[in-house]
């Protein structure tokens, strides 16, 4: 049991970086960016191919981020320069990246075999017998660094402009900010983090699979929303910490549900329903209230 929770927490931490990427595009920029589905796999594919070719795992992770950033750049330019709506731009990127991923990997699934990963490096360094024990430490390190750096970034002049682009584009353009630039920058940053997470998860799983990104955006949203339930939305630092915890809680729920005998294949349906309910909760509440009010009126 303890092992299951530990595994869930490690996975939650590694996936939380993807969720933070979703947080940047979905919450800060107010864009539903479907590129994520592709860039997560892109990060994994890049890492797997480079690792198999003998590249140092840290450098490979960096290249994953670059690849993800490029994916975000493509979506951003399609939206800002070619005026394609963000949703469609994301779908086009996602579809295109699928082929790119197959090109990078050469097949649908690439195993890391016994190549060095960041996990094996840390395990060796700390003298741990199992690589998966290192995942917890690596996960905490990356999540912490990403949260702190992003929090600092969001409090810079550029960070203010990024946040304002998502809430009132009109206002920030009136104060002289090129919102096309901030949008592209946000998409690049978000997808770079998503790809980084893809690379880390690939190292944890020991393989990259062309289908591993399917449902990533929904999982990311679930983490963001679960985080908001516990940490609120009003303070940035708490929101970011909330996303990480949301991701961990999501993984623990998944682990428990699976342990209870729930078929693994139904997991995505379960997650989708969970997110749909969570997002529509305010509307359901409002409908319920007006329904109750009308019932009361009739009774009187």
């Amino acid at each position, binding site marked *: 049991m303890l092992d299951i929770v530990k595994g869930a927490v490690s996975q939650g931490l590694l996936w939380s970086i993807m969720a933070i990427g979703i947080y940047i595009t979905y919450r800060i920029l107010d864009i539903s960016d479907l590129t994520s589905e592709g860039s997560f796999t892109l990060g994994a594919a890049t890492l797997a191919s480079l690792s198999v070719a003998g590249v140092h795992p840290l450098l490979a992770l960096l290249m994953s981020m670059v690849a993800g950033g490029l994916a975000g750049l493509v979506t951003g330019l399609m939206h800002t320069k070619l005026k394609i709506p963000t949703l469609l731009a994301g779908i086009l990127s996602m579809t295109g990246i699928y082929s790119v991923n197959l090109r990078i990997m050469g097949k649908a699934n690439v195993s890391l075999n016994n190549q060095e990963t960041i996990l094996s490096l840390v395990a060796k360094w700390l003298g741990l017998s199992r690589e998966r024990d290192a995942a917890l430490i690596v996960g905490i390190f990356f999540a912490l660094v990403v949260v702190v750096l992003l929090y600092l*970034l969001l*409090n*810079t*002049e*550029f*960070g*203010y*402009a990024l*946040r*304002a682009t998502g*809430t*009132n584009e*009109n*206002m*920030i*353009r*009136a*104060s*002289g*900010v*090129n*919102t096309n630039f901030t949008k592209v920058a946000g998409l690049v940053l978000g997808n770079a983090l998503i790809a980084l997470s893809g690379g880390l998860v690939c190292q944890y799983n020991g393989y990259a699979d062309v289908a591993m990104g399917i449902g990533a955006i929904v999982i990311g949203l679930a983490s963001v929303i679960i985080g908001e339930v516990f940490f609120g939305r*009003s303070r940035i630092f708490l929101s970011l910490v909330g996303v990480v915890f949301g991701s961990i809680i999501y993984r623990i729920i998944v682990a428990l549900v699976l342990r209870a005998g729930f078929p693994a294949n139904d997991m995505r349906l379960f997650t989708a329903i969970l997110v749909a309910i969570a997002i529509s909760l305010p509307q359901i509440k409002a409908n319920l209230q007006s329904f109750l009010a009308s019932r009361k009126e009739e009774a009187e």
Partner: protein
Amino acid sequence: MLTAEHLSKTFNKGTINQKTAIKDVSLELHDGDFVTVIGGNGAGKSTLLNLISGLHTRDKGKITIDGMVISKLPEYKRAKYIGRVFQDPMMGTCADMTIEENLAMAFRRGKRRGLHWGISEKERQFFKRQLEMLELGLEDRMSSKVGLLSGGQRQALTLLMATMMYEVTPTESVEKNLIYALNRGHRPLLKRHLSAKQCADLSWHGKRPLSQLLMVKASELDKPDYQALQDLMSELTKPKLLLLDEHTAALDPKTAKKVLELTETLISRHHLTTIMITHNMRDALAYGNRLWMMNNGQLALDIPAEKKKTLQVNDLLGLFEDVVGESLNNDRMLLS
């Protein structure tokens, strides 16, 4: 100051919804002019302002500010020169961000956004003093989100954001202060020192010549020179043009009056060149030195300062009927 030549704009060209909003408008504003604009719905008032600010791109024509052609610049680049307040109080501020964050963003109008902190302690103190002048108690709520403010408070804040200028830092030298103001971006970017020519180009009205004061700490200046430095910094960093698009229309009458009074105070104190659209004839006469009447996408009347002073609401109604060619039955035109 501001000129527009043969400005035209047609929306939805080539469709059944085609509408010519601005037809061959030419106009000129002088430094310090405060013009009020009236006209019926669809007369082209807002479109004119939006063409100047760059929210809409013009089809034809040329717009200049201080001799610079701005009609080809994107909206965000024109923002360097133009302060704006919109009709909708939601539009001018960021509801999700705090009062001080909003002020800090507006304070950087026309400046490149880098990786410096979004707001400094010094700025926080400065914003506090600026907010005190509004007398709305906002100075004690600087870290609350703007979304919590009322419409009137948000408009007052937007007005402040649109007109903020730099103040003297007493602990720095005169030269440092001036470079700080110049680097805002209204003039070409400067590095460490001011050249003799750059000094001569500045409109200095202090007692002693500016070239002798450059190395002096601002706090050690005589009173007249200190004031001259402050005036110069305001002049360098104030918006060259202030555009107000019915910014009190969404407020209740009492709040609207307060915001209008604040508008007048800020404009006259800093000698701001302003265009203000209003639906209220009385306000159109009470404020500003010039008056434009728009009809059918054209400037139907440009009433100069001397004539405006003698005008009464009834005269204005008469003029309006002459222009439009029908009697006034537009209920959005307020007379009181």
